[in-house]
């Protein structure tokens, strides 16, 4: 039988120059449910599809507010995201305490990027199995950063990661030109539509399985779930009858 000898740890290259453990970690991201992020000139929006392990269980949290000015959306191992988000919370508080200043998103992103990268280069460690979208507003304006288990980070105008996220990215690419000048409400709708596009035919966005996070200039990062997003879902998908039906499923 074929056996891969080069994926036992994250410090060994394969003869093709690949590090399998890192690639496996990136596969873990693709297993996670989809999250989408978009920025305009004034706002940054995260939208996420939540999954419940079974019908009777609660939904897995997908958006984590970190500081008053930003939050993250995760795709992949939630437990790894917990470690990273705790780290980010600590670093953000440290910035406020030490410098009396909200940490720059570019800075916190590169910090966790550095941290994740060292995990891919030390024997006995494993990469984080989670991808993050980091969105919010800092001194330089609204930002969206993508973080991958390899330690790679990118600043994005719009981004989607997680299962079937290609469909969301296709939507984002098609509408890219509109994002910059979009209003807060328009941006939220774009995020929800992108999210919707990545769903399989038999699934709908409901107030139970959808999370929104919005940050803006002069506006703290705020997470919206449950009834708070009902009107957005309604107005975004009002032309689709089944969207309305999905709405009824609450209570």
């Amino acid at each position, binding site marked *: 039988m074929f056996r891969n000898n080069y994926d036992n740890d994250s410090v060994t290259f394969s003869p093709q120059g690949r590090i399998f453990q890192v690639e496996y970690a990136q596969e873990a991201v693709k297993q996670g449910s989809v999250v989408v992020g978009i920025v305009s000139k004034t706002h940054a929006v995260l939208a996420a599809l939540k999954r419940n392990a079974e019908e009777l269980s609660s939904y897995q949290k997908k958006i984590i507010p970190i500081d008053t000015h930003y939050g993250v959306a995760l795709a992949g191992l939630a437990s790894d995201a917990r470690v990273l988000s705790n780290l980010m919370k600590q670093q953000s508080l440290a910035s406020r305490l*030490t*410098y*009396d200043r909200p940490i720059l998103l570019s800075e916190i992103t590169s910090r966790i990027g550095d941290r994740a990268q060292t995990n891919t280069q030390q024997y006995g460690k494993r990469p984080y199995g989670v991808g993050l979208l980091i969105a919010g507003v800092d*001194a330089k*304006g609204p930002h969206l950063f993508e973080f991958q288990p390899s330690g790679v980070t990118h600043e994005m105008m719009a981004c989607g990661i997680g299962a079937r996220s290609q469909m969301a990215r296709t939507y984002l690419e098609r509408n890219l030109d509109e994002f910059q000048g979009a209003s807060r409400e328009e941006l939220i709708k774009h995020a929800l539509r992108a999210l919707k596009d990545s769903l399989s035919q038999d699934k709908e966005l409901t107030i139970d399985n959808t999370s929104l996070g919005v940050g803006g200039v002069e506006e703290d990062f705020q997470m919206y779930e449950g009834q708070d997003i009902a009107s957005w879902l309604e107005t975004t998908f009002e032309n689709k009858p089944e969207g309305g039906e999905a709405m009824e499923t609450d209570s």
Partner: protein
Amino acid sequence: MNHLPHAWGRPRDDVYGHYNPSYLPTSLGGTQHISSMPTSHTQSPIVTGTSVIAIKFKTGIVIAADNLASYGSLARFTDVKRLKPFNKKCVVGFGGDVSDMQYIDRLLMSLDVQQNYAGSAKEMDEEDGGSKALMGANNLHTYLSKVMYKRRSDFNPLWNALLVAGLDEKDAPFLASADLLGTTYSAPTLATGFGAHLAQPLLRNVVPDEKAVEGITREKAVETVRECMKVLFYRDARSMPEYSIAVIDGSGVELKTDEKLENQSWAFAETIRGYGTQTVPVFVEDQDQIRTLDEMREYLPEDGLSAAMDDHPFRTATDPGEFRDIYLAAAQAVERMPKPRQLEISFDLQVDAGMGQGEHEFSYAQGATESWYQESSVDSKVGWGMFPTVEMDDQVPKAWKKVGEVKGATIELYLSEQNEHYINYRLIH
């Protein structure tokens, strides 16, 4: 933080009694064997810088400090730059220990590198809000105050008084202080060291409160600071006339490190009283029109000399202070006389210096001058605080000429060595 860096952070002797140094190293007054002593870190500064002063103006801030690093009272290094710029928006001014300043400066340099790597220190004129992303002076001040507080909590303080001046995140002028205890405060004008006593009141004259900052131009602020640096050089024995001055505003930091004090005038030094041998003009009269005592009263204040010149032919001043009051009253009287003044001063001294009675009569006139009290003199022989200093063979200063009999009033002074604190004087009509 006063002008004595050694006293910074110590309990005040007048409040808590003398500090018990027995646990310290013997060099610092300790009495115990080295092996039994606890770890002790810096107990006093070694090479020190004196005042730093700063003032806000409408669009920015001016900060200055001289270039001297003293080793005790020795002016050891004369080219030490105590203003350190940081990232185009801030300047930190250091008073106190110079080696600790150099340590903090290294912290600032690594902080700058870290900020640049984090991508927050792009060019100020960059379009993507680069200047807003720069650390503001308020951020820097918070950081430095945490460093100072951490070190004092380790019982290993950085022996400095800092002023952080610059623009905050919103590009508004910012000025705040941090010291070796981690104490912080902020005001539109600040000064450390000797400047806290001498320059701060002068700065407050110009900018009494935050509201007044709006009315101050850059030129006015710079002029005020330069004037304060001059006053500090006049009166601070640990200062020098070469200094650094920085102006921070929207166009960045303009730091000059080789400024020199201009237009110094030491005339005021002649008027200083209270440190050494004194001169006492007691009675003054307009020579053009020798006045009678009654005419003289016109010029006199209600109290003071006029009270002294009542009908009592003989008076006893029970302490030097009363004697001084008469002097001050006379000074005020002269101020009210029409100019130009030609003044005449007369004394009739009777001296009892334990060597028998002697009698001296002086009567001098001074050339027309405004600064009569600077030069009027009974040759340093009568001075409050220096009693009794009268000698029998007073020499008439050559610059003075005798103008004859005194009309008006004469005061007789009796100085007695047997009772040092009594001065007797008598008015003769």
